[in-house]
Protein backbone atom coordinates (compact mmCIF):
# COMPACT_ATOMS: atom_id res chain seq x y z
CA UNK A 1 0.00 0.00 0.00
CA UNK A 2 1.27 3.50 -0.88
CA UNK A 3 2.59 5.54 2.00
CA UNK A 4 3.33 8.60 -0.12
CA UNK A 5 1.14 9.60 -3.05
CA UNK A 6 1.95 12.55 -5.26
CA UNK A 7 -0.49 13.45 -8.03
CA UNK A 8 0.29 15.92 -10.82
CA UNK A 9 2.53 18.09 -8.71
CA UNK A 10 3.79 21.17 -10.52
CA UNK A 11 5.82 23.99 -9.01
CA UNK A 12 7.10 27.24 -10.48
CA UNK A 13 9.77 29.34 -8.79
CA UNK A 14 9.03 33.04 -8.18
CA UNK A 15 11.12 33.87 -11.29
CA UNK A 16 8.67 31.70 -13.31
CA UNK A 17 11.22 28.96 -13.99
CA UNK A 18 9.90 25.42 -13.67
CA UNK A 19 10.82 23.62 -10.44
CA UNK A 20 8.65 20.53 -10.81
CA UNK A 21 6.62 19.56 -13.85
CA UNK A 22 3.62 17.27 -13.47
CA UNK A 23 5.15 14.82 -11.00
CA UNK A 24 3.08 11.77 -10.11
CA UNK A 25 4.57 9.19 -7.84
CA UNK A 26 3.78 6.72 -5.10
CA UNK A 27 6.13 5.22 -2.55
CA UNK A 28 5.28 2.22 -0.38
CA UNK A 29 6.06 1.79 3.30
CA UNK A 30 9.60 0.63 4.01
CA UNK A 31 10.82 1.34 0.48
CA UNK A 32 14.37 2.61 -0.14
CA UNK A 33 14.17 5.15 -2.93
CA UNK A 34 17.04 7.05 -4.51
CA UNK A 35 16.11 10.21 -6.37
CA UNK A 36 18.92 11.28 -8.67
CA UNK A 37 19.45 14.08 -11.11
CA UNK A 38 21.90 16.80 -12.03
CA UNK A 39 21.97 20.19 -10.28
CA UNK A 40 18.76 22.14 -10.86
CA UNK A 41 16.71 19.08 -11.78
CA UNK A 42 14.24 19.65 -8.93
CA UNK A 43 15.41 17.04 -6.41
CA UNK A 44 15.57 19.35 -3.41
CA UNK A 45 12.32 21.06 -4.41
CA UNK A 46 10.59 17.68 -4.45
CA UNK A 47 12.03 16.86 -1.00
CA UNK A 48 10.78 20.09 0.47
CA UNK A 49 7.30 19.42 -0.86
CA UNK A 50 7.23 16.12 1.04
CA UNK A 51 7.74 18.01 4.28
CA UNK A 52 5.26 20.75 3.50
CA UNK A 53 7.98 23.39 3.35
CA UNK A 54 6.73 24.60 -0.04
CA UNK A 55 3.04 25.43 -0.31
CA UNK A 56 1.08 23.08 -2.59
CA UNK A 57 -2.28 23.03 -4.29
CA UNK A 58 -4.96 20.96 -2.60
CA UNK A 59 -4.78 17.15 -2.79
CA UNK A 60 -1.48 16.99 -4.68
CA UNK A 61 0.36 15.20 -1.89
CA UNK A 62 -0.99 12.61 0.55
CA UNK A 63 1.14 10.87 3.15
CA UNK A 64 -0.30 8.05 5.26
CA UNK A 65 -3.74 9.34 4.28
CA UNK A 66 -2.91 12.85 5.53
CA UNK A 67 -3.14 15.62 2.98
CA UNK A 68 -1.16 18.78 2.36
CA UNK A 69 -1.65 21.61 3.15
CA UNK A 70 -4.44 20.70 5.61
CA UNK A 71 -2.41 18.30 7.77
CA UNK A 72 0.95 20.03 7.44
CA UNK A 73 1.75 19.74 11.18
CA UNK A 74 1.17 15.98 11.31
CA UNK A 75 2.99 15.46 8.02
CA UNK A 76 6.05 17.33 9.25
CA UNK A 77 6.12 15.03 12.24
CA UNK A 78 5.80 11.97 10.00
CA UNK A 79 8.39 13.00 7.42
CA UNK A 80 11.81 13.80 8.83
CA UNK A 81 14.06 15.96 6.67
CA UNK A 82 17.83 15.82 6.86
CA UNK A 83 19.14 18.87 5.05
CA UNK A 84 22.26 19.04 2.94
CA UNK A 85 24.19 21.22 5.38
CA UNK A 86 23.98 19.87 8.90
CA UNK A 87 25.54 23.04 10.33
CA UNK A 88 22.66 25.11 9.04
CA UNK A 89 20.09 22.71 10.43
CA UNK A 90 21.43 22.55 13.96
CA UNK A 91 19.66 24.97 16.31
CA UNK A 92 20.56 23.60 19.73
CA UNK A 93 23.59 24.64 21.75
CA UNK A 94 24.19 21.13 23.06
CA UNK A 95 23.53 17.70 21.59
CA UNK A 96 20.65 17.29 24.06
CA UNK A 97 19.07 20.62 23.09
CA UNK A 98 19.34 19.80 19.40
CA UNK A 99 17.59 16.46 19.68
CA UNK A 100 15.01 17.84 22.13
CA UNK A 101 14.08 20.69 19.76
CA UNK A 102 11.52 18.66 17.76
CA UNK A 103 9.80 16.94 20.71
CA UNK A 104 9.62 20.33 22.50
CA UNK A 105 7.76 21.71 19.48
CA UNK A 106 5.32 18.81 19.80
CA UNK A 107 4.58 20.05 23.33
CA UNK A 108 5.48 16.71 24.90
CA UNK A 109 6.12 16.41 28.62
CA UNK A 110 9.70 16.89 29.79
CA UNK A 111 9.84 13.24 30.88
CA UNK A 112 8.80 12.04 27.42
CA UNK A 113 11.24 14.45 25.77
CA UNK A 114 14.12 13.14 27.89
CA UNK A 115 13.13 9.57 27.05
CA UNK A 116 13.03 10.28 23.31
CA UNK A 117 16.32 12.17 23.36
CA UNK A 118 18.08 9.29 25.12
CA UNK A 119 16.57 6.68 22.79
CA UNK A 120 17.40 8.61 19.61
CA UNK A 121 20.95 9.32 20.69
CA UNK A 122 21.47 5.68 21.60
CA UNK A 123 20.12 4.66 18.18
CA UNK A 124 22.69 6.78 16.36
CA UNK A 125 25.47 6.07 18.87
CA UNK A 126 25.88 9.61 20.16
CA UNK A 127 24.58 9.15 23.68
CA UNK A 128 27.96 9.82 25.29
CA UNK A 129 28.01 13.27 23.63
CA UNK A 130 24.80 14.43 25.37
CA UNK A 131 26.34 17.64 26.73
CA UNK A 132 28.77 18.32 23.86
CA UNK A 133 28.39 21.39 21.68
CA UNK A 134 27.22 20.26 18.23
CA UNK A 135 29.78 22.38 16.41
CA UNK A 136 32.62 20.42 17.99
CA UNK A 137 31.40 17.14 16.44
CA UNK A 138 32.86 15.71 13.23
CA UNK A 139 30.96 16.02 9.93
CA UNK A 140 29.60 12.47 10.14
CA UNK A 141 28.60 12.89 13.78
CA UNK A 142 26.78 16.12 12.99
CA UNK A 143 24.79 14.36 10.29
CA UNK A 144 23.98 11.58 12.77
CA UNK A 145 22.91 14.20 15.29
CA UNK A 146 20.48 15.68 12.77
CA UNK A 147 19.14 12.16 12.13
CA UNK A 148 18.67 11.72 15.89
CA UNK A 149 16.75 15.01 15.97
CA UNK A 150 14.39 13.63 13.34
CA UNK A 151 14.07 10.22 15.02
CA UNK A 152 13.09 11.90 18.29
CA UNK A 153 9.96 13.10 16.53
CA UNK A 154 9.07 9.49 15.68
CA UNK A 155 9.30 10.18 11.97
CA UNK A 156 8.60 7.08 9.90
CA UNK A 157 9.69 8.52 6.57
CA UNK A 158 13.22 9.91 6.37
CA UNK A 159 14.24 12.19 3.53
CA UNK A 160 17.97 12.82 3.10
CA UNK A 161 19.07 15.67 0.85
CA UNK A 162 22.61 14.90 -0.35
CA UNK A 163 23.50 13.10 2.91
CA UNK A 164 27.16 12.56 2.02
CA UNK A 165 28.11 16.01 0.80
CA UNK A 166 31.22 17.46 2.52
CA UNK A 167 31.87 14.20 4.38
CA UNK A 168 35.15 12.34 4.46
CA UNK A 169 35.39 8.56 3.99
CA UNK A 170 34.78 7.70 7.65
CA UNK A 171 31.93 10.19 7.93
CA UNK A 172 30.29 8.79 4.80
CA UNK A 173 30.61 5.21 6.11
CA UNK A 174 29.16 6.26 9.44
CA UNK A 175 26.12 7.96 7.88
CA UNK A 176 25.46 5.25 5.27
CA UNK A 177 25.64 2.58 7.95
CA UNK A 178 23.12 4.55 10.00
CA UNK A 179 20.75 4.95 7.05
CA UNK A 180 20.85 1.19 6.39
CA UNK A 181 20.09 0.44 10.03
CA UNK A 182 17.10 2.77 9.88
CA UNK A 183 15.90 1.03 6.73
CA UNK A 184 16.19 -2.33 8.50
CA UNK A 185 14.09 -0.82 11.30
CA UNK A 186 11.32 -0.37 8.67
CA UNK A 187 11.66 3.33 8.04
CA UNK A 188 10.91 4.51 4.54
CA UNK A 189 14.11 6.01 3.16
CA UNK A 190 14.29 8.62 0.42
CA UNK A 191 17.75 9.76 -0.59
CA UNK A 192 18.28 12.65 -2.92
CA UNK A 193 21.65 12.69 -4.61
CA UNK A 194 23.52 13.42 -7.80
CA UNK A 195 26.02 10.71 -7.03
CA UNK A 196 24.83 7.09 -7.04
CA UNK A 197 27.96 5.14 -6.11
CA UNK A 198 27.30 4.85 -2.38
CA UNK A 199 23.61 4.13 -2.13
CA UNK A 200 22.31 2.59 -5.32
CA UNK A 201 23.17 -1.03 -4.45
CA UNK A 202 20.91 -0.80 -1.38
CA UNK A 203 17.99 0.90 -3.09
CA UNK A 204 14.74 -0.74 -4.12
CA UNK A 205 14.03 1.92 -6.65
CA UNK A 206 15.75 4.64 -8.65
CA UNK A 207 14.02 7.77 -9.83
CA UNK A 208 15.72 10.15 -12.22
CA UNK A 209 14.67 13.76 -12.45
CA UNK A 210 15.51 16.10 -15.30
CA UNK A 211 14.26 19.66 -15.60
CA UNK A 212 11.59 19.00 -12.97
CA UNK A 213 10.21 15.86 -14.66
CA UNK A 214 10.53 12.20 -13.71
CA UNK A 215 12.27 10.72 -16.74
CA UNK A 216 13.00 7.25 -15.34
CA UNK A 217 11.42 5.32 -12.46
CA UNK A 218 12.39 1.66 -12.07
CA UNK A 219 14.55 -0.84 -10.20
CA UNK A 220 18.17 0.32 -10.18
CA UNK A 221 19.44 -2.69 -12.19
CA UNK A 222 16.99 -1.97 -14.98
CA UNK A 223 18.02 1.62 -15.67
CA UNK A 224 21.51 2.04 -14.28
CA UNK A 225 23.13 1.94 -17.74
CA UNK A 226 20.97 4.86 -18.88
CA UNK A 227 21.86 7.31 -16.15
CA UNK A 228 24.76 9.02 -17.93
CA UNK A 229 22.48 10.45 -20.61
CA UNK A 230 20.87 12.47 -17.80
CA UNK A 231 24.12 13.87 -16.46
CA UNK A 232 24.57 11.37 -13.62
CA UNK A 233 27.72 9.30 -13.30
CA UNK A 234 27.17 5.56 -13.63
CA UNK A 235 28.84 3.66 -10.74
CA UNK A 236 32.25 2.23 -11.65
CA UNK A 237 31.24 -1.35 -10.79
CA UNK A 238 28.25 -1.16 -13.08
CA UNK A 239 30.33 0.32 -15.90
CA UNK A 240 32.91 -2.43 -15.62
CA UNK A 241 30.30 -5.18 -15.72
CA UNK A 242 30.42 -6.13 -12.02
CA UNK A 243 26.85 -5.03 -11.39
CA UNK A 244 25.89 -2.85 -8.44
CA UNK A 245 28.40 -3.47 -5.68
CA UNK A 246 27.59 -2.51 -2.10
CA UNK A 247 29.76 0.42 -1.06
CA UNK A 248 30.22 -0.71 2.55
CA UNK A 249 31.70 -4.11 1.54
Amino acid at each position, binding site marked *: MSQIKIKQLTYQFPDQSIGLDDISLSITKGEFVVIAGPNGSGKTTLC*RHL*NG*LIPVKKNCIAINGLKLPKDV*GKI*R*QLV*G*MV*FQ*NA*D*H*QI*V*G*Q*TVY*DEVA*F*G*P*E*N*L*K*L*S*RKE*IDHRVVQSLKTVGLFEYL*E*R*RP*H*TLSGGEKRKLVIA*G*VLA*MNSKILVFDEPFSNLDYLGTKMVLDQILKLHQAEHTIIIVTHELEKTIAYADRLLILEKGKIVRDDQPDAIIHEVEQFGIREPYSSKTGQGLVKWLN
Partner: protein
Amino acid sequence: MAELTAFNYFSGNSWLHHLDIRFKLIIIFTFNVISIQANYVELMMLSFPVLIVIFQVKLPLRHSLFETRYFLYFLLFIFLSRTIKIDVTNPTYLNYSYPDMIESSMICWRLFLILLIGLLFMFSSKITEIRAAVQWYLNFVPFVPEKKISLMIGLMIRFVPDILQQAADISEAQKARSIGKRKNPVFRITAFATPLFLRIFEQADTIVQAMLSRCFTENRTDIELKADKVDWMVLIVTLSYLVVTIVLDTLLSQMSFL
Protein backbone atom coordinates in the same frame (compact mmCIF):
# COMPACT_ATOMS: atom_id res chain seq x y z
CA MET B 1 32.23 25.86 11.96
CA ALA B 2 34.26 23.87 14.45
CA GLU B 3 36.14 27.04 15.29
CA LEU B 4 34.98 28.58 18.52
CA THR B 5 33.88 32.12 19.07
CA ALA B 6 33.94 34.08 22.30
CA PHE B 7 30.20 34.33 22.79
CA ASN B 8 29.45 30.64 22.80
CA TYR B 9 28.03 28.38 25.45
CA PHE B 10 30.50 25.83 26.83
CA SER B 11 28.88 22.92 28.59
CA GLY B 12 30.28 22.41 32.07
CA ASN B 13 29.52 21.33 35.58
CA SER B 14 30.49 24.46 37.50
CA TRP B 15 28.22 26.19 40.01
CA LEU B 16 27.84 29.01 37.50
CA HIS B 17 26.49 26.59 34.90
CA HIS B 18 24.00 25.24 37.43
CA LEU B 19 22.93 28.60 38.82
CA ASP B 20 19.29 29.37 38.03
CA ILE B 21 19.29 31.57 34.95
CA ARG B 22 16.83 34.06 36.48
CA PHE B 23 19.21 34.65 39.39
CA LYS B 24 22.14 34.87 37.00
CA LEU B 25 20.34 37.61 35.07
CA ILE B 26 19.64 39.60 38.26
CA ILE B 27 23.26 39.30 39.36
CA ILE B 28 24.64 40.29 35.97
CA PHE B 29 22.23 43.19 35.63
CA THR B 30 23.15 44.50 39.09
CA PHE B 31 26.87 44.04 38.45
CA ASN B 32 26.64 45.91 35.16
CA VAL B 33 24.59 48.78 36.60
CA ILE B 34 27.13 49.29 39.39
CA SER B 35 30.06 48.88 36.99
CA ILE B 36 28.78 51.66 34.71
CA GLN B 37 29.16 54.25 37.48
CA ALA B 38 31.94 52.63 39.46
CA ASN B 39 35.09 54.43 40.56
CA TYR B 40 38.46 52.78 41.24
CA VAL B 41 37.61 51.29 44.60
CA GLU B 42 34.36 49.83 43.35
CA LEU B 43 35.97 48.60 40.17
CA MET B 44 38.61 46.76 42.18
CA MET B 45 35.97 45.30 44.47
CA LEU B 46 33.91 44.18 41.45
CA SER B 47 36.80 42.88 39.36
CA PHE B 48 38.15 40.69 42.14
CA PRO B 49 35.20 38.23 42.30
CA VAL B 50 34.80 38.31 38.50
CA LEU B 51 38.42 37.22 38.05
CA ILE B 52 38.05 34.51 40.68
CA VAL B 53 34.96 33.16 38.92
CA ILE B 54 36.72 33.27 35.53
CA PHE B 55 39.53 31.05 36.84
CA GLN B 56 37.19 28.89 38.88
CA VAL B 57 34.89 28.00 35.97
CA LYS B 58 37.86 27.77 33.56
CA LEU B 59 36.67 30.32 31.04
CA PRO B 60 39.15 30.17 28.11
CA LEU B 61 40.23 33.76 28.76
CA ARG B 62 43.08 34.00 26.27
CA HIS B 63 40.93 32.68 23.46
CA SER B 64 38.00 34.90 24.45
CA LEU B 65 40.19 38.01 24.56
CA PHE B 66 41.62 37.16 21.16
CA GLU B 67 38.13 36.75 19.75
CA THR B 68 37.06 40.11 21.18
CA ARG B 69 40.28 41.86 20.15
CA TYR B 70 38.44 44.49 18.08
CA PHE B 71 36.55 45.58 21.14
CA LEU B 72 39.86 45.80 22.99
CA TYR B 73 41.28 47.96 20.19
CA PHE B 74 38.19 50.11 20.57
CA LEU B 75 38.95 50.49 24.29
CA LEU B 76 42.51 51.48 23.46
CA PHE B 77 41.16 54.05 21.02
CA ILE B 78 38.86 55.47 23.72
CA PHE B 79 41.78 55.62 26.14
CA LEU B 80 44.07 57.43 23.71
CA SER B 81 41.42 59.80 22.40
CA ARG B 82 40.46 60.87 25.91
CA THR B 83 44.01 61.10 27.19
CA ILE B 84 45.93 62.75 24.42
CA LYS B 85 45.15 66.35 23.53
CA ILE B 86 46.52 68.17 20.52
CA ASP B 87 47.87 71.62 21.21
CA VAL B 88 46.17 74.01 18.75
CA THR B 89 49.08 76.43 18.74
CA ASN B 90 51.54 73.64 18.05
CA PRO B 91 49.81 70.63 16.40
CA THR B 92 52.98 68.53 16.39
CA TYR B 93 53.05 68.61 20.18
CA LEU B 94 50.82 66.05 21.96
CA ASN B 95 49.63 66.87 25.44
CA TYR B 96 48.49 64.48 28.11
CA SER B 97 47.57 64.84 31.74
CA TYR B 98 47.42 62.33 34.59
CA PRO B 99 43.84 63.21 35.63
CA ASP B 100 42.69 62.55 32.03
CA MET B 101 44.63 59.32 31.98
CA ILE B 102 43.05 58.16 35.24
CA GLU B 103 39.60 59.16 34.07
CA SER B 104 39.89 57.39 30.70
CA SER B 105 41.48 54.26 32.19
CA MET B 106 38.51 54.07 34.56
CA ILE B 107 36.08 54.24 31.63
CA CYS B 108 37.99 51.50 29.81
CA TRP B 109 38.11 49.37 32.94
CA ARG B 110 34.33 49.69 33.37
CA LEU B 111 33.72 48.60 29.77
CA PHE B 112 36.25 45.79 30.05
CA LEU B 113 34.58 44.54 33.23
CA ILE B 114 31.20 44.54 31.49
CA LEU B 115 32.78 42.55 28.65
CA LEU B 116 34.14 39.97 31.10
CA ILE B 117 30.77 39.66 32.83
CA GLY B 118 29.10 39.19 29.42
CA LEU B 119 31.62 36.50 28.46
CA LEU B 120 30.99 34.65 31.72
CA PHE B 121 27.26 34.84 31.17
CA MET B 122 27.39 33.53 27.59
CA PHE B 123 29.97 30.90 28.55
CA SER B 124 27.68 29.38 31.17
CA SER B 125 24.16 29.96 29.83
CA LYS B 126 22.30 28.11 27.11
CA ILE B 127 20.15 30.11 24.72
CA THR B 128 17.15 28.01 25.70
CA GLU B 129 17.70 28.99 29.35
CA ILE B 130 18.09 32.67 28.51
CA ARG B 131 14.90 32.53 26.45
CA ALA B 132 13.05 30.82 29.28
CA ALA B 133 14.25 33.45 31.78
CA VAL B 134 13.31 36.39 29.54
CA GLN B 135 9.91 34.80 29.01
CA TRP B 136 9.51 34.30 32.75
CA TYR B 137 10.30 37.95 33.54
CA LEU B 138 8.17 39.34 30.70
CA ASN B 139 5.28 37.27 31.96
CA PHE B 140 4.83 39.92 34.67
CA VAL B 141 4.59 42.76 32.14
CA PRO B 142 1.07 43.19 30.79
CA PHE B 143 0.38 43.42 27.02
CA VAL B 144 3.83 42.12 26.12
CA PRO B 145 4.01 39.03 23.84
CA GLU B 146 6.64 37.32 26.00
CA LYS B 147 6.97 34.18 23.85
CA LYS B 148 7.61 36.18 20.67
CA ILE B 149 10.14 38.46 22.34
CA SER B 150 12.01 35.60 24.00
CA LEU B 151 12.06 33.72 20.70
CA MET B 152 13.54 36.74 18.91
CA ILE B 153 16.20 37.15 21.59
CA GLY B 154 16.99 33.43 21.43
CA LEU B 155 17.39 33.48 17.64
CA MET B 156 19.50 36.62 17.77
CA ILE B 157 21.90 35.05 20.27
CA ARG B 158 21.89 31.82 18.25
CA PHE B 159 23.01 33.79 15.21
CA VAL B 160 25.87 35.82 16.71
CA PRO B 161 28.54 33.06 16.56
CA ASP B 162 27.41 32.10 13.03
CA ILE B 163 27.64 35.69 11.82
CA LEU B 164 31.11 36.06 13.34
CA GLN B 165 32.16 32.79 11.72
CA GLN B 166 30.81 33.88 8.33
CA ALA B 167 32.60 37.21 8.66
CA ALA B 168 35.88 35.45 9.49
CA ASP B 169 35.49 33.07 6.52
CA ILE B 170 34.79 35.90 4.08
CA SER B 171 37.62 37.98 5.47
CA GLU B 172 40.08 35.08 5.03
CA ALA B 173 38.84 34.35 1.51
CA GLN B 174 39.33 38.01 0.58
CA LYS B 175 42.77 38.18 2.16
CA ALA B 176 43.71 35.13 0.08
CA ARG B 177 42.80 37.17 -3.00
CA SER B 178 44.89 40.17 -1.88
CA ILE B 179 42.11 42.49 -0.74
CA GLY B 180 44.84 44.24 1.27
CA LYS B 181 46.14 45.81 -1.93
CA ARG B 182 42.86 47.66 -2.47
CA LYS B 183 43.19 50.94 -0.59
CA ASN B 184 39.69 52.29 -1.20
CA PRO B 185 37.81 51.74 2.10
CA VAL B 186 34.37 51.99 0.42
CA PHE B 187 35.29 49.20 -1.99
CA ARG B 188 36.63 47.08 0.85
CA ILE B 189 33.53 47.56 3.00
CA THR B 190 31.20 46.81 0.05
CA ALA B 191 33.23 43.76 -0.98
CA PHE B 192 33.03 42.46 2.58
CA ALA B 193 29.47 43.41 3.52
CA THR B 194 27.69 42.24 0.35
CA PRO B 195 28.61 38.53 0.54
CA LEU B 196 28.29 38.61 4.33
CA PHE B 197 24.69 39.82 4.25
CA LEU B 198 23.81 37.45 1.41
CA ARG B 199 25.17 34.47 3.32
CA ILE B 200 23.48 35.55 6.55
CA PHE B 201 20.10 35.84 4.81
CA GLU B 202 20.58 32.50 3.03
CA GLN B 203 21.52 30.82 6.26
CA ALA B 204 18.61 32.42 8.10
CA ASP B 205 16.30 31.05 5.43
CA THR B 206 17.74 27.53 5.80
CA ILE B 207 17.47 27.67 9.57
CA VAL B 208 13.84 28.78 9.33
CA GLN B 209 13.12 25.88 6.94
CA ALA B 210 14.93 23.44 9.24
CA MET B 211 12.95 24.72 12.22
CA LEU B 212 9.65 24.50 10.37
CA SER B 213 10.44 20.98 9.19
CA ARG B 214 10.60 20.02 12.86
CA CYS B 215 7.16 21.48 13.59
CA PHE B 216 8.44 24.71 15.14
CA THR B 217 5.82 26.65 17.03
CA GLU B 218 5.81 29.40 19.65
CA ASN B 219 3.76 27.23 21.93
CA ARG B 220 6.33 24.58 22.84
CA THR B 221 7.53 22.77 25.95
CA ASP B 222 9.58 25.27 27.89
CA ILE B 223 12.54 24.61 30.10
CA GLU B 224 11.58 24.04 33.71
CA LEU B 225 13.16 26.75 35.83
CA LYS B 226 13.86 25.66 39.39
CA ALA B 227 15.57 27.65 42.11
CA ASP B 228 17.02 25.77 45.04
CA LYS B 229 18.83 26.77 48.26
CA VAL B 230 22.19 27.20 46.52
CA ASP B 231 20.71 29.66 44.01
CA TRP B 232 19.22 31.76 46.80
CA MET B 233 22.49 31.64 48.74
CA VAL B 234 24.51 32.77 45.72
CA LEU B 235 22.05 35.60 45.08
CA ILE B 236 22.08 36.81 48.68
CA VAL B 237 25.87 36.59 49.00
CA THR B 238 26.43 38.42 45.71
CA LEU B 239 23.93 41.17 46.41
CA SER B 240 25.33 41.58 49.94
CA TYR B 241 28.82 41.88 48.48
CA LEU B 242 27.61 44.55 46.07
CA VAL B 243 25.97 46.47 48.91
CA VAL B 244 29.19 46.26 50.95
CA THR B 245 31.10 47.54 47.91
CA ILE B 246 28.87 50.57 47.56
CA VAL B 247 28.87 51.31 51.31
CA LEU B 248 32.65 50.94 51.54
CA ASP B 249 33.14 53.23 48.59
CA THR B 250 30.78 55.83 50.09
CA LEU B 251 32.64 55.69 53.40
CA LEU B 252 36.02 56.02 51.71
CA SER B 253 34.89 58.99 49.65
CA GLN B 254 33.48 60.68 52.79
CA MET B 255 36.73 60.08 54.63
CA SER B 256 38.78 61.55 51.82
CA PHE B 257 36.39 64.52 51.72
CA LEU B 258 36.93 65.14 55.44
